[in-house]
């Protein structure tokens, strides 16, 4: 972009500073009777969680081993993030609505929780998904045409409802909460759990391995194209708790699945810890598309409150010609520490990472990806768009690693940063490790300030200032938005507008 000015109106900066908490419409609290693990983190906490979930002995052992390991580990400090020390003993590691284990069907789920999801726009009743179509007769026909989404709803530490399970089961797709999968498909879980993100992987992943609560388990059988989008909607509600979900998706040979993940939390003036682990396994010829719209409470304009989001997401392209694609829209959280990665083990496997990370107010994000090329003729593509406003800091951190066996490996990386105002920061930290002379690695990076010239041009044509910013930002992120599933793209676009409201004066 030419004509990039060093300055932007003083009013712009003022308005950013005045960023109001009330713009976060998901910030309400659901008042419901809770069952909490006692505050603190000891082997007994781990036993408490495991017992709540009626887990087999091997899993309890697995957790306890991770816990022992975690006690020896140090919190990483290499990210460009600053926050006061976290007291890991000062949180509840399990929080669930009372009697949650007993929900046999959607009819048992308390009204407060159903209302919560309704308010968030997440359909939990399968028939609701089909509503909005005139006449019952047309419903079935319409259902074939309108895209349907199966939802696993995770409320604090438990999954409260999972839709379309039966219909998916008919084609052999397993879609259920992680806790259920441990009971119903222990062999599958045991075979794959921890094989992509080992329990010793890093401080936060190891913590998760010890105390993980609920999450989603997906298995797509050989040759099956999953007939609908699968999704998990994570909601953190309880005060003084953290969320430690674990998601495991296995796409067997030649299968395909598109999975969406959404997250929100109430506005609380304490910091809530979220340390999730997501593991993806793509076998020969399989494809997994994983999309995230992360909208955890970012804290108020002065940086009070907000979610600390320390997440380990990794996909293993285990089979030849497999493909994993991560698309993320990160607008929430006070702190984001997240590097969805691909291990390109299978020959000719493909890894992709498309990211939009927006920070405003006092938010800090250190996010990116790792593409580990192990197999022959593996390809990866990284498109990262960082937008910083207010007094926030936004860092892209990425690794492209080409191992000796990975002949013909190719990577293309493009990192663009957009600055709004002059009190924010954008940083790009790309690491490249190459052990092959024949690798083709391309890296492009740009940093631009939202230009006053562009804003004035749009305003001269009649577009108001806030809408002009939204228009320019949408232009900036367009190539990533286009990678999102349709329904998510619309949501993401709206979210961008809300996230950047008040970023100009």
């Amino acid at each position, binding site marked *: *972009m*030419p*004509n990039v000015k*060093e*300055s932007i*109106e003083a009013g712009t900066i003022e308005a950013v500073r005045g960023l109001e908490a009330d713009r976060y419409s998901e910030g309400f609290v659901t008042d419901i009777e809770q069952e909490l693990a006692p505050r603190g983190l000891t082997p007994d906490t781990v036993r408490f969680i495991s017992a709540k979930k009626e887990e087999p002995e091997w899993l309890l052992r697995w957790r306890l081993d991770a816990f022992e390991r975690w006690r020896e580990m140090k919190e990483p400090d290499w990210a460009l993030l600053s926050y006061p020390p976290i007291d890991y003993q000062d949180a509840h590691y399990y929080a669930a609505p009372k009697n949650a284990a007993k929900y046999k069907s959607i009819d048992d789920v308390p009204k407060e929780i159903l209302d919560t999801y309704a308010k968030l726009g997440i359909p939990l009743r399968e028939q609701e998904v089909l509503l909005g179509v005139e006449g019952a007769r047309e419903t079935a026909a319409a259902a074939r045409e309108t895209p349907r989404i199966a939802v696993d709803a995770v409320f604090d530490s438990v999954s409260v409802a999972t839709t379309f399970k039966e219909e998916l089961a008919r084609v052999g797709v397993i879609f259920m909460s992680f806790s259920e999968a441990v009971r119903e498909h222990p062999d599958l879980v045991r075979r794959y759990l921890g094989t992509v993100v080992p329990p010793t992987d890093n401080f936060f992943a190891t913590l998760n391995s010890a105390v993980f609560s609920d999450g989603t388990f997906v298995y797509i059988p050989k040759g099956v194209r999953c007939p609908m989008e699968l999704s998990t909607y994570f909601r953190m509600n309880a005060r003084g708790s953290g969320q430690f979900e674990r998601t495991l998706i296995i796409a067997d040979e030649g299968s395909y699945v598109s999975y969406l993940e959404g997250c929100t939390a109430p506005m609380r003036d304490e910091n809530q810890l979220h340390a999730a682990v997501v593991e993806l396994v793509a076998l020969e010829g399989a494809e997994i598309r994983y999309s995230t719209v992360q909208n955890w409470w970012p804290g108020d304009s002065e940086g009070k409150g907000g979610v600390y989001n320390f997440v380990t997401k990794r996909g293993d392209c285990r089979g030849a010609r497999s493909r994993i694609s991560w698309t993320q829209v990160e607008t929430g959280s006070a702190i984001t520490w997240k590097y969805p990665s691909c291990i390109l083990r299978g020959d000719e496997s493909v890894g992709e990472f498309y990211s939009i990370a927006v920070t405003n107010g006092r938010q800090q994000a250190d996010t990116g990806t790792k593409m580990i090329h192990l197999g022959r003729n593996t390809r990866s593509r990284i498109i990262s768009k960082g937008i910083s406003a207010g007094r926030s800091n936004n860092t892209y951190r990425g690794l492209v690693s080409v191992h000796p066996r990975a002949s013909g490996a190719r990577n293309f990386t493009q990192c663009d940063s957009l600055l709004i105002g002059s009190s924010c920061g954008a940083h790009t930290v790309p690491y490249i490790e190459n052990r092959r002379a024949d690798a083709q690695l391309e890296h492009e990076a740009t940093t631009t300030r939202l*230009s*006053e*010239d*562009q804003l*004035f*041009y*749009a*305003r*001269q*044509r*009649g*577009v*108001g*200032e806030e*809408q002009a910013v939204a*228009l*320019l930002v*949408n*232009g*900036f*992120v*367009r*190539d990533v938005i286009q990678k999102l599933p349709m329904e998510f793209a619309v949501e993401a676009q709206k979210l961008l507008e809300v996230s950047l409201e008040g970023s100009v004066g």
Partner: protein
Amino acid sequence: MLELKDLHARLTLEGAPDRAILNGVTLTVPAGEVHAIMGPNGSGKSTLSYLLAGRPGYQATSGSARFLGEDLLSLEPEARAAKGVFLSFQYPVEIPGVPVMTFVRAAMNAQRASRGEAEISAPDFLKKSRAIAERLRMDPDMLKRPLNVGFSGGEKKRLEIYQMLMLEPRLMILDETDSGLDIDALRIVSEGVNALRSPDRAMLVITHYQRLLDHIRPDRVHVLSAGRIIASGGPELALQLESEGYDALIAGAG
């Protein structure tokens, strides 16, 4: 329609010293008329256009500017646009990722909304867009591309006029629209501009050269020098400048 009275202005940009840019401009453009503003580089021509459009940093210090009887200088740029002020930029900016039609439709609907009108329907918009693109001999594919990105100088100017025809403003300010246009393009663009001439519209045409005025015939010609109008006359004044240059006139005015 447009009335400027003893307008003084300063340019205040962060990191640069303030400087006076207009030193008392008085000018009346009645509805239905086309006025040309000519003058050497640095005389304040573009400044005047930015000031009227409301560009941040361009501040009136005294005098007044009224458009349709209203104080123009108190309005935000987008409010001026909604009232019908259109500036065809000398250097149109590039907006990556935003297709031309998306941009123009957003502009049109924003203007309509602020006037309390309903949004234009997609078919009506497309129909209008197609007709105007055809009139300006524009490749329709150009309208699907990000605004001005990778466009030639001439294409950018043509696109300004496309937007002007789409938005149908009341006061059109053309800032050196002729630069970057070859002779054929100049004729096509001028035809487009002339099509908007009407008794309830007015136009300010800023140019260095007579050649644009062969196509867009002005009713009055004003010569701007050092932030003041030093001469006004009919179309013959432009011809006189073409043959004698600005120097003689400026020396005479000094």
